[in-house]
């Protein structure tokens, strides 16, 4: 038996167009077509022909990005809105945990609000009375129930709202992203309550960004994207498909970030000046570095300081934000990250083989060349940094075009966003071309480990220890 039946549902929202302001009361009343009389450019299609069934007793999850139509779908099922076309049919009493405590009046007591809220959600006064003690106990508000709701903390407010809604004891429970209402203990209590609902054969529809929750709880899931069903079925597979799509989207986003970074790199002078002109650096060390550097460059090669591409190094490397500087005797003309299959990418799985490719160009022969790479996490902590000099390279030489590849066989970083430094410089550190934090990549991991670095590892147990599920 199906509890919820959604057939080819479309929902078109109006946008506030200019034309609306000229609509008069009279014309609207006479024509009676406030909704239909619209031009297409003033509408937004939140749902475009969505169909699915939810069997009675099933726990069903809807996932999707922000603005994909999840909440609209939920509202249509709750009966708060009506589909523009198609139909939604729900069997049994529905309770929607959409906004907790909507309709609470701040001036009156929690007790009175429980009664009114319960009646709004469809209970009779007697039904509320018989559940009142349970509600208050569940919300843990025994001591405050007679105080006006305006004196409640937001957590208390939400708890009371949740307690009332859940005690409506619906056949179909709609939950929209409300589990973050209280502390850990309360969240557990809510999950227990959901589990109890399941045991009693009630239908639960869960809209959540917590994919973990959907995989753990739901028997089926639906992925909505821009108002269209992209996948429907086994939650694990639906969520994997969704995650892959999210990764692809992030990749596109980071790629466009790189194009912007390249644009920054195109204007190195402006960046360099802005950095060296910034007054933030510690007075002691900054002038020292600034004084020292030109001396070195002039001593080795006079042209360096006069080169047209030259820009100044920031006074303090560790305070530096993204930018590009150096003498440009050697220039990094292209930076590319490629994944295991050799395809350029920005999103990797933890443990992937990754290659960083630097295409360089030296107009004149150079003998003092060091390639360097640094990986920083989102907090700015250097996760790893190395260069060819540290690793003992000798007899370096470069003329014309060339490529340097830095291959990481296994990218053992934890989930997160990372930034990349790449540089070509002299052995003494004077930069030819330094790209500071200009490139971004993301590491994905299904595990939620802590820290920065993920050493290859395994667990082994002996004696009385039994455990399964580990890779």
């Amino acid at each position, binding site marked *: 038996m199906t509890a919820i039946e959604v057939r080819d549902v479309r929902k078109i929202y109006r946008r506030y167009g200019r034309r609306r302001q000229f609509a008069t009361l009279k014309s609207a009343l006479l024509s009676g077509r406030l909704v239909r009389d619209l031009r297409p450019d003033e509408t937004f299609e939140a749902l475009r022909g969505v169909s699915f069934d939810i069997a009675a007793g099933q726990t069903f999850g809807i996932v999707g990005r922000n603005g994909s139509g999840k909440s609209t779908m939920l509202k249509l099922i709750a009966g708060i809105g009506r589909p523009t076309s198609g139909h939604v049919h729900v069997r049994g009493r529905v309770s929607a945990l959409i906004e907790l405590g*909507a309709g609470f009046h701040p001036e009156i007591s929690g007790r009175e609000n429980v009664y009114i809220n319960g009646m709004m959600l469809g209970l*009779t006064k007697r039904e509320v009375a018989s559940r009142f003690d349970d509600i208050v106990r569940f919300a843990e508000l025994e001591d405050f129930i007679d105080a006006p709701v305006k004196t409640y903390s937001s957590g208390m407010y939400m708890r009371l709202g949740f307690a009332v809604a859940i005690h409506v004891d619906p056949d179909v429970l709609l939950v929209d992203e409300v589990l973050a209402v209280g502390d850990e203990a309360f969240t557990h209590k809510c999950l227990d309550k959901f589990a109890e609902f399941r045991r009693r054969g009630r239908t639960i529809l869960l809209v959540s960004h917590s994919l973990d929750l959907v995989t753990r709880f739901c028997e089926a899931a639906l992925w909505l994207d821009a108002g269209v069903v992209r996948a429907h079925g086994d939650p694990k597979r639906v969520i994997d498909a969704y995650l892959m799509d999210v990764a692809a989207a992030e990749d596109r986003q980071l790629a466009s970030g790189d194009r912007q970074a390249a644009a920054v790199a195109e204007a190195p002078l402006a960046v360099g000046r802005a950095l060296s002109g910034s007054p933030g650096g510690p007075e002691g060390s900054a002038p020292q570095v600034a004084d020292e550097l030109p001396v070195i460059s002039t001593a080795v090669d006079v042209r360096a300081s006069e080169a047209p591409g030259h820009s100044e190094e920031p006074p303090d490397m560790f305070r530096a934000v993204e930018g590009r500087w150096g003498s440009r005797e050697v220039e990094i003309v292209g930076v590319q990250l490629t994944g295991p299959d050799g395809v350029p990418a920005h999103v990797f799985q933890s443990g992937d083989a990754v290659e960083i490719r630097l295409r360089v160009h030296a107009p004149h022969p150079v003998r003092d060349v060091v390639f360097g790479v640094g990986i920083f996490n989102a907090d700015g902590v250097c996760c790893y940094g190395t260069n060819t000099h540290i690793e003992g390279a000798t007899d370096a030489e470069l003329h014309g075009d060339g490529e340097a590849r830095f291959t990481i066989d296994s990218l053992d970083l934890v989930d997160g966003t990372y930034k990349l430094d790449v540089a070509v410089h002299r052995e003494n550190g004077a930069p030819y071309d330094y790209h500071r934090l200009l490139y971004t990549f993301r590491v994905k991991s299904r595990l939620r480990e802590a820290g920065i670095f993920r050493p290859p590892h395994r667990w082994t147990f002996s004696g009385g220890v039994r455990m399964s599920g580990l890779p």
Partner: protein
Amino acid sequence: MLHNLQQLFRYRALIASLVARELKARYRGSVLGFFWSFVNPLLLLLIYTFVFTIVLPGVHPPDLEPFALFMFCGILPWAWFSSSLLEASNVLVAGGNLIRKVLFPAEILPIVTVLAGLVHFGLGLPILAGFLLYYRVPVAPVDLAWFPVIVAVQLVLTLGLALLLSALTVHFRDVRDLLSNLLTLWFFATPIIYALAQAPPNVQGLLNLNPFTHLAVSYQEVLFRAGPFTEWPRLLAVGGGSIAVFWAGYFVFDRLRDTLAEEV
């Protein structure tokens, strides 16, 4: 429509609780509390008495003495009418969160506003009764039997207009501003601070088109004037019209119902 009314009946306990909440919440935190329901009309009466007996003495004919009492018979129901409409025009917008997030019949909100106004009106009645006793105005029991009928007619009329205005305000926020001006005009176009007979005959014809004229005259005849209640045919006509207004108001509300959650 009948189905809607049936559903409203199911929600009567909620409506009752919401009216009670409305009244409680309104005066929570004020020193006089419920007494404001008595004090407000008294103060209003004081102002009009000052204007019409001290600033402008003698503009009213002697058969309207005591003039304060005459005015009070009209001001009290008018206060209910005008404040209900003003609040109802705003009630859906103010309760937007509720309409967007909770499934329940939205018409409950304007209905609660009007009913809360009715309770305030009821609380003002003891003051009116006190004045009637003080001035020893003879009130015929037969006339008094008409009083609930007048109130019922006014209730239906106010409910119809409140439903209409509340739904329209969601779509056209101008209604609120328009309404407050319209109500000022409406007040002076109703024989409340003057008697209908004082107006020139051609203006009287115009005033007769105003449904509240007949309500006000009915209140005055029943409570203030001696002699039989002669306004009843017109009152019943207004009653019939009020039912039509209620029907039309509810119809418009129902038509706009689906758009309320989106527009609010």
